[in-house]
């Protein structure tokens, strides 16, 4: 067991448990560094094994891909740890460390059981992170937990069945002939925020605290992307799932008013890109997916940090309540814009070089419709996250809020990540060198840069032309479908208000149904219900007689 202490994930979990005892929060920053050093010192292919019944558990197995994901996880943990030094809620930080440690353990695990165990620890600890937000975050946390436990159960069924039918627990490319691999897939996809469970992300993440959201944004979905890359690269089905997620994220982000919810929807959308890439499954696509995960973690954390800073300082999150902060929070504004440009794949930012890989993969595979959709989606991303978020938060009308830039450590964290965004954008070779496959693609060609700039410019133009309509969408109006169709940014003709209303009432009725089910369950199973009440002796004897009679009757005809 001594060797498992040298496991970068487990050591982080162990450290995390001690955080409540630590007074000086700067010490906490050492943990990711320690874990990084351990990981760095281990060679690819290092393995820790444990015997478990007839199977063996592989606690640690490193390859290029898992190394990439572990690095970025540690990096973002480090940055967020700096960012969250002012967070007084120690249980949040502690559980966040355990959460990150377990997601690194998932990434480094070599078999399905280990993966599952850490998978579940992730679910539980991330729920605690959500719960640490505020009093209102209790129910979102419960819903979040419910979705993840459902996913976990499906995953467990899949794992057991898969292990039983194939006789191996090793986690690699899952055989598509085996029905259980689809259970596992479903379990993974639920964590990735795939339909029909996409809504847990915007439901749960924004209800965490200003620092909790940053923690949450990076790990659960990206761990899911990792396991999808390992297990399901090249499954065509994933392309459709990804496309759905992309447009789901864009549409709802545009309709949304709360800045952190906007960013959460954009997580769905960005993960959609990655899943599309996983579905394509070629070398460049896998490179695209993993590099996109890498950069996305950085810029999404950056965006959420700037949103978190705004929330921390002003206590507001609604776009309609904010505005004009560029005067009082200039640094936050600049960092937010860098993140926004990154997410929109603006040249010289990190998003540009990673998203290009994915889009290029469709070109190589001659998937024309897919290419068109992805390009359109890129424009959509620019609209909601690239312009909408900074515009409404920092510019627009002046909301006359007294504010200033956040404390030193938060500023430092944001600057760190902004620098990374630009650094990767300017020197793509650094990122490309740690990708799982060799990269021959060169992002900075003239036509690519110019076409991207055109795309961004026109969608930016569209934004400002349509600003008055967009403003109305802040309260969800009738006009947004017209807006989409008119500019062809997205083909969402089906998605008119009528349908939306339908969906809305449907959701409502499902919600009602749920409440009513619980109520009726309580009526029957509760302490005073028919089932939960103490039965009278006669009642029990009657049941005995009935059961006996049934048995005898059955046997009479047997």
């Amino acid at each position, binding site marked *: 067991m001594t060797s498992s202490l040298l496991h970068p994930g487990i050591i982080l979990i162990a450290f995390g448990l001690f955080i409540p005892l630590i007074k000086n929060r700067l010490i906490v920053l050492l943990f990711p560094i320690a874990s990084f050093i351990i990981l760095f010192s281990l060679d690819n292919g290092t393995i820790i094994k444990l015997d478990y019944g007839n199977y063996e558990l592989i606690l640690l197995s490193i390859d290029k891909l898992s190394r990439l994901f572990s690095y970025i996880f540690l990096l973002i943990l480090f940055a967020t740890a700096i960012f969250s030094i002012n967070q007084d809620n120690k249980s949040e930080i502690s559980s966040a460390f355990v959460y990150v440690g377990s997601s690194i353990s998932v990434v480094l695990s070599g078999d399905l059981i280990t993966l599952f165990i850490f998978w579940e620890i992730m679910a539980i600890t991330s729920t605690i992170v959500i719960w640490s937000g505020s009093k209102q975050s209790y129910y979102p946390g419960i819903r979040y937990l419910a979705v993840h436990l459902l996913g976990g159960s499906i995953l467990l069924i899949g794992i057991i069945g898969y292990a039983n039918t194939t006789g191996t627990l090793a986690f690699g490319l899952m055989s598509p002939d085996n029905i259980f691999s689809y259970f596992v897939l479903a379990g993974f996809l639920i964590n990735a925020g795939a339909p029909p469970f996409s809504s847990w992300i915007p439901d749960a993440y924004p209800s965490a605290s200003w620092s909790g959201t940053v923690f949450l944004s990076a790990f659960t979905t990206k761990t899911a992307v990792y396991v999808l890359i390992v297990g399901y690269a090249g499954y065509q089905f994933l392309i459709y799932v990804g496309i759905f997620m992309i447009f789901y994220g864009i549409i709802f982000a545009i309709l949304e008013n709360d800045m952190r919810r906007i960013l959460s929807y954009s997580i769905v959308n960005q993960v959609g890109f990655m899943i599309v890439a996983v579905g394509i499954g070629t070398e460049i696509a896998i490179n695209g997916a993993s590099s996109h995960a890498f950069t996305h973690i950085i810029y999404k954390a950056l965006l959420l940090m700037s949103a978190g800073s705004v929330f921390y300082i002003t206590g507001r999150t609604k776009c309609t309540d904010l505005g004009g902060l560029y005067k009082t929070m200039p640094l936050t504004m600049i960092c937010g814009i860098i993140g926004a440009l990154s997410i929109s794949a603006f040249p010289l930012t990190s998003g540009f070089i990673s998203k290009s890989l994915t889009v290029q993969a469709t070109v190589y595979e001659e998937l024309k419709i897919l290419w068109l959709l992805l390009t359109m989606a890129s424009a959509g991303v620019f609209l909601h996250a690239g312009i909408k978020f900074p515009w409404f938060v920092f510019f627009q009308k002046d909301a006359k809020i007294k504010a200033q830039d956040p404390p030193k450590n938060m500023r430092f964290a944001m600057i760190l990540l902004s620098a990374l965004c630009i650094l990767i954008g300017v020197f793509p070779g650094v990122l490309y060198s740690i990708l799982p496959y060799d990269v021959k693609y060169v992002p900075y060609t003239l036509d690519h840069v110019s076409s991207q700039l055109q795309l961004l410019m026109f969608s930016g133009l569209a934004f400002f032309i349509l600003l008055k309509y967009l403003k109305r969408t802040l309260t969800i109006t009738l006009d947004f479908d017209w807006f989409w169709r008119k500019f062809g940014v997205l083909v969402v003709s089906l998605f008119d208000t009528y349908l939306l209303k339908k969906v809305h009432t449907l959701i409502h009725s499902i919600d009602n149904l749920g409440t009513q089910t619980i109520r009726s369950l309580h009526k029957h*199973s509760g302490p005073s219900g028919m089932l939960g009440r103490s039965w009278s002796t006669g009642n029990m004897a009657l049941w005995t007689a009935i059961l006996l009679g049934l048995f005898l009757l059955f046997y009479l005809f047997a």
Partner: protein
Amino acid sequence: MNEHAPALVVMLPIIGAVLIMLIRHNNLNWSIALLSGISTIYYSIILYLNARSLGTISYAMGGWEPPVGIEYRIDEFNSLLIALIAIVSFLILIYAKSSLNIELKKNKISTFYSMYLLCLGGLIGILSTGDAFNAFVFLEISSLATYVIISMGNDRRGLLAAYQYLIIGTIGATLYVIGVGLIFIITGSLNLYDISIKLGDIELYRPLLASLAFITVGIALKIALFPLHAWLPNAYAFAPSVGTAFLASTATKVAIYLLIKYLYLVYGFDLVYSNQIFIFVILSLSIIAMFGASMIAIFQSNLKKLFAYSSVAQIGYITLGIGIANYNGLIGSTVHIINHSIIKAAIFLAIGCLVFSSKIVNIDQLAGLGKRMPMVALCITVSSLSLIGVPGTVGFISKWYLVLGSLEQGWWVVVFALAVSSILALIYVGRIIELIWFHAPVVGMDSENKIPFEMLAVTVLMTIATIYFGIDTRLTGDLAKIAVENVLLGEQL
């Protein structure tokens, strides 16, 4: 003396019980109980080792050779359970002294020990006897002792619970005896092994099936299979904590063993499972138990009742394995008998600690327990996680085998039911864990009594066992495998 171990494991607790009744000395009774407990463990382990090395042991009571005389028949399966029960009940005995001092009146304590040992002797008797009627006698001995134990609790509602259990338990035992009587009329024998041989030549199937029905329903009452479970929650809730832990971890398990014995060793696999209806009934009852009881547990506010309902649900898992009836399913059942015994002992002992220190009976009183009594809180948390079947705990092992078994049969519905019922279990356990760790303590609920070392030690030991056996499956899983391979499916394999 080792060759007489089959008689000794039954008689030692009974002698202990008698001596306690006779001496009635407040300081001595605990020591006598411990003494007879430890000697029972010694002989039960010898019994198991002998059964392993020599094969099935047949012990003729009074020198009368079977099938005329009463035969004690020990194989790898029942000796395993005997050892389990002996060990668990001994540990609970260690725990009992301080707990009983708080919960019982002084003059009742020696009666309690006596009944405890009598019940233990009866349970071991059921396990070891090879005679159908003798099993009934032991069943009644243990049941009578159980009724007394339940009625002794501080809560006066324990009287109602005991009365109710008395009526229902007696009906169950009587139904069992009717079934035995029918077999006796058909075969003219009461020796189970003899019966199983003679049943091969029987052509009169209908009375045989009727006897199966009577025996199944009779034992089902004792094991609290779902629609017949209603006596159990009150009985567990209002008995003294020690009694609850003891009953929950042993009594129902023994009854389940009896059922398994009848289905596999007496009637035989072919007869029972040629009958689709039987499988259907037992499977559907198990699944209903898993759902219904968990559902009720979710809404309970009394802590002991909640876990009592969860016991009903867990019994559903065990009978599910019996219904699945293949190699893995049976291992699942067997392992879960052992595991659930350990888990429930741990949980109810921890609850006993709570009752001891601050009279906690309701769930809302648990709020902030993690801060007030971290050790006990941890025990409850870990063992209830084990109840759900979190990987790395014992509960997972049993569920694993059950899922494997139902997959082998191709019963998807069952697999699905297992998953969903785990979620239900998660909800009621989650409620508790949430209260324990994430809520502020209730004001004015400081612990009044310091929990004595041995109580805490036994509770922690049991909790560690739930984890240890979840990781190291040699002692539970492998022994269960041996039991199933050699005893239950001896002819099929």
